[in-house]
Each structure stands twice: as C-alpha cells, then as structure tokens.
C-alpha cells in the first residue's frame, strides 16, 4: 500500500482524447517527494527546451502535494506547472482551496495534460470514472459561472472545479486558473490551459487516503492546531499588523491598509504616497470593506479564514470570492482613492481569469505610455479620460486581445518591445519578463536581493520567509524574539538576527555578510521548496514569522504519513535536489546570470560590487558555476548525473566544470503564434 500519496497519475492526451491511469515509481517520491518536485522531474524528462510553450508537446500538470488529503491542517495546495509563454521558463503556481485533496480522494496524485484538443473540453474525474467532455457551451464564460454550470450539469454539487475564463481561452500571457477563492495565477499558466483547449477540470473523490503511523500523525496534527491557537493569542510584536499573524496576509479581515498604501508604489510602480492614509480614507475604506465582505472563508482543512465572500450588489458585480492583496492591486495601479473600484474590477477580472498582480500593472503601463504620447488615440480609439474607466476599458481589450489588447496581452516586457518608440523604458518592474509587486525601497537588502534575483518562482510576493525582513530596533527586542523562535534552523541564524542592527556596522547593505546571507536565503528557500512539494500552504509555513510548520516538525510529518525514513538533513537534501533540477530546466532554456536581477529601481541605493559578490557567493554556495548553472559535480552529488550529462551534451556545461560555457541566446525568441 502507498501512504499519503495514491501512487497513480492520470495521463490525458487531449489531441487523441486518450485517458490513462499510470502507476508511479516510489523511487521518484523518495528522490523528489511530490508536488513541485515530481512535476519538475516530469518536465525535465519530457519537455526538452525546443518545445514552445504553446505547442502540443508542452505539458500542463495539476499536482497534489505529498501530504494533501491527510489531516494535516492547511495541506491543500494544488501545484500547477508548465512552461510559461511569458518567461519561456518553468512556471509553477500554488493554488489553495479544495481541489488537491479532492483529487487525492479520487485516487490520483497528478493529472498530466499533453496535446491540444480540437474543440473546447473539460475533464471530469469521479473516482475511477474519467471523461473528457465537450465544453463548447462554456466558451467565453466566466470562471465562477463555469464552475457552477459544470456542477449543475453533472448533478454533483460537491465536485471541485478549476476553470479558465476568456483570458485563458484567448491565451493572454497572464491568464489565471481560478478555483473559487483561490487561483493559480502567475506565469501565464491559464494561457497554456487555453491553448490546450481545456476549459476546466472537475473532480469528485470518495476514496481513502492512508497514513503509515496513524497515532503519531494525529499527535503531530494536534500540536500544529495548538500552536495555531497559541499564535492567535500571541501576535508578533514590533511589526505592522499585516505581518503579525499567520496565514496569508489577512487582507479580508484587516482594514488598516496604511502599511501597503504608504510603502508600496502606485501607478506603474512609480509613485509613493506617503500621506495617503488619512483618517477620512481610513473611515471610507473600513466602511466599504465592511459592506463588501459577507463572510470570511477558509481553504480545505484550515481555520485561518484568509479569504472572503464579496457581496456588493450596488457595484453591479455578482458575488465572488477574494483573498489577499488583489483588493489593492487595481486600486493602486489606477491611482484610485476608492476601494469600491477595487472590489468591482477585481470581481470582473476574476471572471475573465487574469492574474491580479500582472493585469493592473500592464494597465498602468498602458496609461503611462498614453500620457507620455507613446500610445495615442490612434492605438487607443475611444480611450476614456477617467483613470478608473480606462482600467475597465483596457481589461475588456486585453481579455479579448482586441486592438491594443493584442499587444498588452503579452505583458509589459513583450508589449514594450513590440510598441517600441521608447516604451522599453516603461517596462520598469519586471524580473525575467514577469511583473512584480510594486515595491520601491531605499537601502539594498542583501537577503531579498538574492531571493528576488535568483528565485525560481520569479515572484517576489511569494518567496518571503520566516526571518523578519528588517531588524528590530533594540538588542533587547531581538533577544526577546529569539527566545521562543523554535522555527530557526540553528543557533547561527538566531545569532545573525540578534546582532543585526538598524544602523551602524551591522546593518544593510553589508550586514548580513554575503556568507550569512547565503545561509539565510538557503533556509528561507528550502522552506518554500518543502511546502511546494508536500502541498502545505505557505501561509502556515514558509511565509510568515513563527509559523506552526517548520524545518523541525515537517520531517516528522512526512515520516509519519508516508512511512519513509525522513529527518532534517534528508529533507534539506531533497529540496536542494528539487531546487537544482528546476535550475537546470531553466538553464537549459537559456537562463543565465545576466537575467538575475531585481527591477532597476527596486532599491534606490544599489551597490554593483556588493551585488556581484552576493551572486558569486550564492552560486558557489549552491555548487553552481559563475553563470548560475549547476556543475556536473553538484548534480552528481544530488543523484542527478543524467542532468549533468544532458547539459554537457548540449554544450551548456563544458569540461572543466566551473567554466561558464557557450553564450546563451541573448533573448529567448518571441513566441510563435499558431492560431
């Protein structure tokens, strides 16, 4: 018997309409755990770098995490992976909600799609019964509406559905996959789903998920629940309210948006509005939010209530579910002072299925180009004068790829280059061609410099870690903080933190030193790679300060659930393997050192020499060469000899190991459009 996992994947060939249930190799679980880890293994093996994202050979994988469907609180992530049309690199996005556990109960760890369906279809999985069904009648339909319709026509109110909207069907490069209150949004995963002619996946499962050491597992689960209660009563002192608790940032419950609105940039990642949060705004926004939020809701098996039902009939949008930060992204992108606008456009955007981070930034970018005269009334006929109306106007164009929407649908990087005429200078907030949250700060933070520059998620909002981002003012406070810091991996990290000062010798940018920085980054990254392999919500583990899951208890969870031997060192090694394999996938697709940088103005004060040293130290620490490509020796040590051999054969690694080899193509070629 397999424990925690089911031991089966579904292979769906959309071109031929073929469905196969395939037993998986337990060795892959031992090497990569599951979720992102095994997704990466499949993508390495089956999607060579020649494969265009919009080609039938690209795979779209919906994966459960190794522990999804077990009673571990908050272990509910669906890890969706494919090759991104926007970055041309591996894209993966973790979706909360209810889908992954349902898939486990249906008897599968992953659903792997290949090919392209001749017409629009959806997949219906009901335990052993799996069907590809016609979706012609769902064409152009909103994501939530699609889910409702599918449940109705199947007569299965308990089916869990994830769907794309019009944006996905039209292959907008930042189309999302929406699942009730959650979504897999980043990297254009929804565009690949649309390219494959797949409108939705619906799942209902009624089988058991087994646990190897039941009593022990139950005990561990209860400890986590207890710690969650403890943290509810003990918020972290000395940080803004939004960072004091656990879970995803509690945007739906908290009204006080002073921190976001005054420290993040507005418009096209351009303006700071330090005086924005007045008493009057605070009052208005509280009133709006209270009117809009009908109920706070959770993901599967989690008490944290990070999401909400938004019901605001006066706005003319139907009810929808929201979580986290999309309530502000459109507001701030449009320089709107009015939160109602945010609730209204976010609902519409969700029905179309676009990423709530990228979409508003692309729109703000277009507005700036218009104001600078680079785009004119010729390209934007009938463009409204009012900024909020402009956003609605742009949204409609983008999701239909009509007029200027055709270009903007590719995101700021590609659009800027197609528009030309100086537009490139306005692509000012992307990393590796992908839009980032608009944060503009003063002094370089070495830890975040490395995490932003090198992170494979290519997403600076989702890689935050358990170490506070800035030191506490006094040594006493820092000493107090580390007293019950059970999550820290070792004493060294605690020491780094205690000695870290706001000013003086032990402060940014030279403290933490590059060596310390590497260790801090390694730890924070490791936590994310663990979550994304086992299916834990980052909000209870890698993301917040002092979470209930950490490097010391997760190995015990894995051991008790699966029966595998597991300890911290082993887990650390597996995540290093997964991290390195993903690195190799991207290196094979052209990723090099020159791509590893934050947006130019992310920090006002930059230190080129220090930054070069940080990258050098980090690559060395990881066992990568100076181009950031894993060396053959490193790969061999991690049991990835076959990866090393492939990189050699392709001339990406040369003999003599450390030497950087053949230049990568300067830019990945623009996508082929085949429709």
């Amino acid at each position: 018997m397999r424990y925690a996992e089911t031991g089966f994947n579904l292979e769906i060939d959309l071109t031929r309409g073929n469905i196969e249930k395939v037993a998986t190799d337990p060795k892959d679980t031992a090497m990569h755990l599951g979720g992102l880890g095994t997704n990466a293994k499949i993508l390495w093996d089956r999607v060579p770098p020649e494969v265009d994202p919009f080609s039938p050979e690209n795979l779209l994988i919906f994966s459960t995490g190794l522990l999804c469907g077990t009673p571990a609180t908050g272990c509910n992530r669906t890890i969706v992976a494919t090759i991104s049309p926007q970055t041309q690199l591996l894209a993966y996005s973790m979706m909360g909600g209810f889908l992954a556990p349902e898939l486990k109960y249906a008897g599968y760890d992953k659903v792997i799609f290949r090919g392209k369906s001749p017409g629009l279809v959806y997949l219906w999985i009901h335990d052993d019964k799996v069907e590809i069904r016609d979706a012609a009648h769902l064409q152009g339909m909103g994501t939530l509406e699609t889910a409702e319709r599918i449940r109705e026509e199947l007569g299965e109110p308990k089916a869990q559905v994830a769907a794309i909207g019009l944006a996905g069907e039209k292959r907008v490069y930042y189309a999302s996959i929406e699942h009730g209150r959650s979504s897999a949004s980043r990297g254009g995963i929804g565009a690949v789903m649309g390219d494959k002619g797949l409108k939705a996946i619906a799942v209902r499962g009624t089988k058991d998920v087994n646990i190897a050491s039941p009593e022990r597992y139950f005990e561990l689960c209860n400890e986590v629940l207890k710690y969650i209660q403890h943290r509810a009563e003990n918020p972290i002192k000395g940080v803004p309210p939004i960072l004091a608790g656990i879970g995803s940032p509690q945007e739906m419950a908290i009204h006080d948006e002073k921190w976001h609105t005054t420290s993040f940039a507005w418009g096209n990642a351009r303006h700071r509005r330090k005086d924005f949060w007045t008493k009057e705004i605070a009052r208005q926004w509280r009133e709006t939010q209270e009117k809009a939020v009908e109920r706070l809701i959770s993901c599967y098996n989690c008490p944290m209530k990070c999401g909400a039902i938004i019901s605001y009939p006066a706005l003319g949008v139907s009810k929808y579910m929201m979580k986290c930060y999309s309530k502000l992204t459109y507001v701030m992108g449009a320089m709107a002072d009015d939160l109602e606008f945010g609730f209204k456009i976010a609902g519409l955007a969700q029905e179309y299925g676009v990423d709530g981070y990228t979409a508003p930034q692309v729109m703000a970018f277009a507005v700036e180009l218009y104001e600078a005269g680079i785009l004119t009334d010729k390209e934007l006929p009938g463009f409204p004068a009012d900024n909020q109306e402009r956003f609605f106007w742009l949204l409609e164009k983008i999701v239909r790829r009509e007029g200027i929407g055709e270009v903007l649908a590719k995101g700021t990087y590609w659009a800027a280059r197609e528009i030309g005429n100086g537009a490139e200078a306005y692509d000012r907030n992307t990393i590796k061609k992908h839009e980032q949250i608009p944060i503009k700060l003063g002094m370089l933070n070495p830890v975040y410099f490395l995490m932003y520059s090198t992170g494979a998620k290519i997403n600076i909002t989702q890689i935050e870690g358990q170490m506070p981002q800035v030191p506490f003012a006094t040594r006493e406070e820092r000493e107090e903080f580390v007293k019950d810091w059970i999550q820290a991996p070792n004493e060294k990290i605690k020491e780094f933190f205690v000695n870290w000062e706001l000013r003086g010798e032990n402060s940014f940018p030279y403290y933490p030193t590059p060596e310390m920085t590497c260790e801090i980054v390694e730890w924070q990254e490791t936590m994310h790679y663990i979550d994304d392999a086992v299916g834990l919500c980052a909000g209870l583990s890698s993301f917040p300060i002092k979470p209930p899951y950490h490097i010391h208890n997760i190995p015990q969870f894995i051991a008790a659930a699966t029966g595998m031997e597991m300890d911290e060192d082993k887990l650390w090694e597996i995540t290093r393997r997964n991290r390195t394999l993903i690195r190799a996938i991207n290196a094979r697709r052209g990723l090099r050192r020159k791509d590893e940088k934050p947006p130019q103005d992310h920090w006002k004060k930059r230190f080129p020499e220090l930054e070069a040293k940080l990258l050098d130290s980090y690559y060395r620490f990881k066992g990568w060469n100076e181009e950031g490509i894993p060396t053959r020796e490193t790969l061999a040590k991690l049991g990835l000899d076959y990866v090393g051999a492939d990189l050699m054969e392709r001339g990406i690694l040369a003999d003599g190991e450390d030497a950087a080899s053949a230049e990568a193509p300067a830019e990945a070629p623009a996508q082929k459009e085949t429709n």
Partner: protein
Amino acid sequence: MTDEKKKKIIKTIRIDVDKCNGCRACEVICSAFHAEPKYSSNNPARSRIRVIHEPLRDIYIPVYAGEYTVAECAGRDKYTIDGKEYDECAFCRASCPSRVEFKEPDSGLPLKCDMCEGEEEPLCVRWCLADALIYEEREEEVAEEDVLTEQEDLELGLESLAKKYGLKQIIDTVARMSKED
C-alpha cells in the same frame, strides 16, 4: 416500570452557522477517527458530519448524521434560499434510501454520528477552531423505556438496512467486510 425515571446525559453540539468558514476540518477528523485502526486513513465521504457549502449563497451548514430511516419521506417540501431552490432532503440528517448522503461510499451502509464514543469531547468540535461547533452536556430525566440499549439500537439499524438491501445482501456484505479486515 414504565413510570420509573432514569438520569441520562444528553450530549449536544450547538452549531453556530454564522461562524462556519467551510473548511471541512470536521469532516476530515470525523472520518479519520472512525477509520480502522483509528486515524489510519481519512475520507470526508465517510464522515458523520457534512458541511453543506454553497459559498455564493452564503450557505454553510454543518449537518450531523442522524438515525437511519427505513423509507424515504412521502411528501417533500422545498426551500428557497437566496434565490436557489433546495429539496428538503438537502438539509436532512437521516441516512435514507433516497440518497447517498451518510452512507459508506463502498458498502452503502448507513453512518450515524456517535458523538465520538470514548472521547472526552467530540473530535469535530475540537478541530473546529472557528468555534462553529460547541459541545454541551446536560442531564435529563427520561422514562426508562426511552433509553435504547446498544443492542436495541443495533437491531433497529440492521432492520432498516435489511428492508432496503435485503437480509441476504447485508449478511454477504458483513462477511466480505470481515474478510477484508
């Protein structure tokens, strides 16, 4: 004898639907607790509590599995909530021949909440950190004949099953299940 009164502990779970967030932790832990051996598996489809969950209509209703009924109700009413029509059965506690709710997914045997026999506090209550489920105990005097013995309870259940599936099929199923163990 019929006049004699006996003390009985009435266990109740107070449900505050306004606090429910739809997480289904109660379903997870109920099914894990009743697995054989305990906690060795979980499967919400085997849970003795289920959360009727219609987020877009603000319906979050935990319902506990009640008694088995032999036959489906003769007349059924309809509810309309927030514009959607529901069959009366949607909110019913009974394990009833007319639907799949509160039955083991493989054998079809009925499920009933047993208040987590042997535990200090029902597990669904303990795992509901949202406090939508609150456990209460109170003592009540009841006529003795009202207190069903476990044996009577079992017989009643089996009788109802026999009516639905036929005694032969029940015997076969029990035989198969004990072999699987």
